[in-house]
Structures are given as structure tokens and as C-alpha cells.
């Protein structure tokens, strides 16, 4: 409300799109509360993303870029917009869709069908990498073994590596993900609430992992979730909108609700949180773990074995608790699970997709 409401009232009087002044407005743009027509919305939405890509020099001509595609709204819109912009502005990119099949019946199999349709609709080659092939386990099997507690830890760790392995298979130079402004604002808040200063300093960077094998970037860093939904709705894009069956209520985190409340009061707040995250005075000397490679699989790791190998070893040896919580002494175990369970209730996406 506040200033936004005054602005929208002003615009409501004209009854014409306040950008082109020609057509009838059909929507109130979530980011600015301007009343605009559909065509202008498409235009500003795409143009903003184009400016982010150009302004941050996300891509170089001739690069091969994989789009992390889950079949959900963010990645579907990302695939659509990116292929559109690539054509329109001659980025000269080779785009690919990269999907991870976690092996969750009733969820991922259906969403993969969506991605397969997208492959045809947008003419982008699709690569699917499955947990079963990479690790020998599906999430269904993992959950059967360890239950519904900590399963998101497995899924998150595995997905991170699976995306990199899939990207390596495709021989791409970059991986883009559909993280939107709301996601990033939420991560900033969560890192403050948790006291994680190291993550706070890097969670707002648009490109991460530049020192690793495949850099990842987030072209939707400044794009509001609501506008993504709006774009998908008006463009009638084909996407899959079911929650993961293993983390129901994933969208009821305190932090997410708080951000939605803020957005209602002051749409600009989401961008302001990201700005704050970028501006925080964090000493550049914040310690980062030294990066090496996993002795077992060769993936980047700060320890002897990478996290995925530790978890996998636990699964294969029938000790699923291995690698969960802190490795130091058994006395800490209980405390750690307690901390984990409280942390869960404040964040929205539990399934590891917020790990940058």
C-alpha cells in the first residue's frame, strides 16, 4: 500500500496502459503497481531480463548454456524467455535443457513429461540425468530406507552434483537456474536469521562457482516470482505445479510468508532486501574452505570425500545417519537435529534448491 497505492490510483484514472498509452490495461504490474497492457508487460518483463544479462555480462557469444529445468514455473519461463532473447538479440548461445530425475514417483515423472514437451515446444535439446544412474538410488528408495526425516539433505546434495555432472555431459560452459528475486531475498533473510555471514556475503551474487568447473548464474535475480507466474499465465506456458510429495508444506516457511506480506505493503521491499544483501559491509577476508577434489569421485570437495560420497557410502552400508549432522563426536548429534528442525520451519524450500 503506502506510496504504491497512491501511484496506482493515479494510473487508474487514465484507463489506458501507462506505458504505451494506447491499449487497455489488463494487469497491475507486481513490481511497480503500474497498470499496463499485456503487450507492454511482455516487453518490460523480457527487456528487464535482457538488461540484467547484458549489464552483468552473463554470457559470451558462442557459449553452450544449460538451463536447469524442473518443469516448474521458474525454469519453464526461463527456458522460454532465454530462447526468445537468444533469438531476438543474437546472443549466439547454444541452449540446452538439463533435468534431474530424482526418481520420485507421482512427482518427478510427471514434471519430466512437462520438460519433454518443452523440449519440443522450444526446440531445445534435453538431457536427463537420474539419481539412479549416478548413484544407484532413487529418492523413492532412499525415503523407503531413511524415512521422511533428512531426506531433503540427500536430495539437495545429490542434485547439486547431478547438475554439474549433467552439465559436464552436455559440455556446457554455463548453467543457468530459475532462482527469482523472492528466492534470493528469502535467502538473504535466512542467512541473517541463522548467523551465516559467509553465505550472506555470496548469496546475492548473480554468478557463482566461477572458480569451479561450471559457473552458475541466475538471470531472474531481479525478477519477481509473481511476474513469472503472470508471464506463464498470460503466455499459457506449459508448466507443472505440484509440490514435491516428500516435502509437503514446503511453501509455508515464516520467511516466505514475511516476504509476501512485505511485498503487499511495499513491492519494492524485495529489491531492497537484495540491495541490502549486495551492500552489506562484509570483510573480504571471510574464510572460505579450501577447495580440493573428492578422492573417491573427483568432484570438488573441501574434505577428503565429497558430501555426496559420504551420504552414498552411508546408504550403501546401511548406515543412513552417516554424514548427517556434524561429524564431531556423537554428543552433538541430538543438538544438531534439533537445530535442523527449527531451521526448517523458517525457510520455505526445504529441498535444497536454495543452495547457491
Amino acid at each position, binding site marked *: 500500500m*503506502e506510496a504504491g497505492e497512491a501511484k496506482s490510483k493515479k494510473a487508474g484514472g487514465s484507463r489506458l496502459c501507462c506505458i504505451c498509452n494506447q491499449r487497455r490495461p489488463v494487469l497491475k504490474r507486481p513490481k511497480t503497481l503500474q497498470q499496463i497492457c499485456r503487450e507492454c508487460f511482455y516487453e518490460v518483463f523480457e527487456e528487464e531480463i535482457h538488461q540484467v544479462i547484458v549489464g552483468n555480462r552473463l554470457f559470451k557469444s558462442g557459449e553452450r548454456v544449460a538451463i536447469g529445468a524442473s518443469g516448474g514455473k521458474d525454469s519453464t519461463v526461463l527456458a522460454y524467455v532465454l530462447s526468445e532473447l537468444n533469438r531476438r538479440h543474437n546472443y549466439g548461445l547454444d541452449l540446452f535443457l538439463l533435468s534431474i530425475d530424482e526418481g520420485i514417483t507421482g512427482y518427478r515423472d510427471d514434471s519430466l513429461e512437462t520438460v519433454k514437451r518443452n523440449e519440443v515446444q522450444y526446440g531445445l535439446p534435453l538431457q536427463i540425468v537420474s539419481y539412479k544412474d549416478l548413484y544407484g538410488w532413487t529418492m523413492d528408495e532412499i525415503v523407503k530406507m531413511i524415512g521422511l526425516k533428512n531426506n531433503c539433505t540427500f536430495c539437495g546434495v545429490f542434485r547439486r552434483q547431478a547438475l554439474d555432472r549433467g552439465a559436464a555431459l552436455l559440455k556446457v560452459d554455463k548453467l543457468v537456474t530459475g532462482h527469482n528475486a523472492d528466492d534470493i531475498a528469502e535467502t538473504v*533473510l535466512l542467512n*541473517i536469521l541463522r548467523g*551465516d555471514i559467509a553465505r550472506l556475503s555470496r548469496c546475492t551474487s548473480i554468478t557463482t562457482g566461477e572458480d569451479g568447473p561450471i559457473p552458475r548464474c541466475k538471470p531472474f535475480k531481479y525478477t519477481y516470482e509473481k511476474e513469472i507466474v503472470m508471464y506463464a499465465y498470460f503466455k499459457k506456458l506449459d508448466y507443472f505445479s505440484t509440490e514435491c510429495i516428500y516435502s509437503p508444506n514446503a511453501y509455508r516457511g515464516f520467511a516466505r510468508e514475511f516476504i509476501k506480506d512485505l511485498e503487499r505493503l511495499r513491492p519494492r521491499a524485495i529489491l531492497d532486501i537484495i540491495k*541490502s544483501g549486495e551492500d552489506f559491509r562484509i570483510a573480504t577476508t571471510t574464510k572460505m574452505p579450501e577447495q580440493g577434489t573428492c578422492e573417491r569421485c573427483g568432484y570438488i570437495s573441501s574434505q577428503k570425500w565429497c558430501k555426496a560420497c559420504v551420504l552414498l557410502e552411508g546408504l550403501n552400508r546401511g548406515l543412513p545417519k552417516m554424514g548427517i549432522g556434524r561429524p564431531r563426536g556423537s554428543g552433538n548429534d541430538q543438538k544438531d537435529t534439533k537445530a535442523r528442525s527449527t531451521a526448517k520451519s523458517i525457510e520455505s524450500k526445504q529441498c535444497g534448491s536454495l543452495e547457491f
Partner: protein
Amino acid sequence: MACNSSGCESGCYDREKDDGSKISVEDAVAGGGNQESVCVKCKCNEPMTFGDGGSDDGRFCAECFRNNVFGKFRLAVTSHAMITPSDNVLVAFSGGSSSRVALQFVHELQIKALKNYEASRDRSLPVFGVGVAFVDETAAFPALSTEMVDAIEWVRSTVSSLSPPAKDLHVVPVESVFGSDSLDARDRLVKLLDSVPDDTGKEDLLLHLKMLTLQKIASENGYNRLVVGSCTSRIASHVLSATVKGRGYSLSADIQHVDARWKVPIVLPLRDCVRLEITRLCLLDGLKTVELACRSQCGINDLVSSFVALLQEENPSRECTIVRTAAKLTPFYFNKIPETDDSNVPMATQRRLKRFNIKYDGSMTTEAFCPICNGPLNRSDSSGLDTFEECLESDVLYAACCSSCRFQILPEDGSSLEQFSSYLPDHMISQVKHQKVNSQAYLREKIKDCLLLDDEEVV
């Protein structure tokens, strides 16, 4: 009061007990066979039960609890040299529980210093002076005028009832920063607040004006410290609301124990005490408080406060974690008491100061401040400053402000901005002009290594 809280860990049964009552030592000894019902610290007195749902309810006896809170206060005061014997301290008193406790603790510190002074042979260390300031906000909240009159009366009686040494009380209306003519000043304040379109912006602007008033009282009456009773909970809310308003850069300036960017340095001795402790202490010591319903119920600040309250419910240490995170951000050069060559400062104090001195990165200093909120400006914010050499005053004001004040406080269109800047206290406007000189100095800093002559000769 019976304790039925889930957070209650030990030492309380369904025993009915009045809050604030102290249990005698004999009682505790008599019940010594039962280890559960003694204070976890001194192991002899019966623990206090507040029944307020706090996690450590029923763990400490009244004395240990009080010592713990006072200990945090004293550690903050001594380790940051907030109050030294030669100081003259002004306590900002709103009537709320935090500032009431701050006043009480400063008062106790003063009594102790007086005792030491009288007992010492050479009487070398003087006793620091204490004054109290109350800002009257009637002009901003006309509806509260009767309550405000009562509140002022209550403040007077509270301050005068404190045991000697006597404390001066300064009750000053917030509009006094606009000038000495009270009618004209009040008019300007009302017009200024009315021209701010955003509710949260209005609230924040009033807060800045209040701070200016306190600064004015302090500097006009010869005080050299301003004690503000912000507690951990309040600061936690500030951390989040500053983040939400895009003030991430200046945030680390606001939350340190010492903030010496003002003429009279501000100190926050209750920074490490949570609200629960403060309210318990008020209950325990029978400290009365008065809360005026000045805050709006619909702005960003209110939303953030209720979010923090929700988080605190879910995890009782959340507020502390938030403040601790923010404390890890790099502070500014002014976040410590400026060093003095005062030979009065005893060696022990100097040593202690050295130990606790905040390290700050000298290369990250800023010289420009937002004229409205006095927040240090990020380079990206202040970049537009020099392009406005020959422009209108209001344009210069716009360029000199931080992005958050531009959005939530400054009016959007040019003519109302012009008016807005004409209502602003002269102090703020003069700061805008001063800013230009500063930015020149800042530019100079950047090219310093290539300049051949010293400062004065070049300009």
C-alpha cells in the same frame, strides 16, 4: 504464579508465588535435599518463576538474575569506555521499560562511583554527571496530548524520586529542532510530516528528528555522552527493517555499542540484553513504565517487529542470533569512542580499552552521510552528488540522500520536494551543503597518491 510454560526447564512446580518476592536463604537451605529447586548459579537461593514462557524461567534466583543483567550492562559500559569518570551523561528516557532500566543502571553506577569517591583518600576520580532527557512528541501526535501531559508528569516524579546525586531533567518538544519560536516550529514539523507520503517514512523521519532533539539537548547542556536504552530485541528488529529498506550498507553503523558519528556520541549499554530480561527486571525491581501508543500499526516497522516476535517464539535465541550476525558486518571508523589524550583516564581503563577495541578496516571509511537519516552513504548512492553544482536546493537534497530516504521520505514530484526541503530543520539543510565539501574531500582521497601537493595548497 504457577509456571505452566513449556520452556520451563527446572526448579518450578505448581507452587503459587508472587512475582518479585525474594526467597530467604534459610528456605532454600531447608529445601536443600531437593537439588532441583535451587538457583543454577548460586546453588542456594530459590529460583524465580515469572511464568512468561522464557526458556530460562525458574533457573535463577532474583539476585543472580539481576546480577547477570547488570553484569552485561556493566561489561558493555566498561569495555567500550561508554562512561568514564570525567563524563557528563545524558540518558534518553522515553518511559518504556528499556530506557527505564538504562536509567536505573546508570543511576546505580553513579551511586557506586560516588561511594568510591567518598571512600577514596585522594579523590582523584570525579563522579560522572547524569542528566535525563524526555522528548515531547505532542506536536506529531495531537491526539495523545492528554496522555503526554500525564507522561511528562510521571517522568518528572520518577526522575526526582531517584536518590541523590540529583539529576537534571530536560523535557523538550521535538519541534525545537526547527527553531526557538515554538508556534512556527510546530507548524513546520506538522507540514514536514504531512508532506511525507509513506507511513513508514513518516515514522522514520520522526525518529530521526527525535534523535536530533536529543543531540540538541545534549550539546546545549554540556553532555558528552547520550545513553540510549535500545535492547537486543529492538536492535534485531532494526537489523531486519534496515535490510528490508535497502539500508544494508549503513546498517553496521547503527548497531554497534558506540556510535560517534553524532556530535555527542551515542552509546547502547543494553545492546546485549533481550526484552524479556528487561521486562522481568522491571517486574522484579518494581520499576514502573509508561508506554505511549505512538507507533503506527500498519507500516514496515510494525510488520518486522511482529515477524521478529514470531521468530522469537519459535526459537528463544533468535533475536540474539540476528544481532550477532549483524555485528559481524564491518563497523565504521566512528563506531568507537574517539580517543582522547586525557591523562585523567587511569591506566587500567586504557588497558581495558585496548583489549576490546573494535578492529575496523581503515580503507573502508566513508565521509558522506545522508542529510536526513545521517546514515553513511555507499559509493553507488553518493555518485550523483557532484553533477548538481548549479541546481536547485531540492535537487541537491535529493542527490545527497540515501536511496532509502529518497524512496520513503522525500516526496516524488519536484514542487513538493521543494516545499519539503524548505520545511526541513536548518541543521539538515546545512549538512547538504557541507556534504559537497565532503565529497570533494572524498574524491581527493581517491586520487591522493597521484597528487604532489598537500591539501590546502591545491584547493
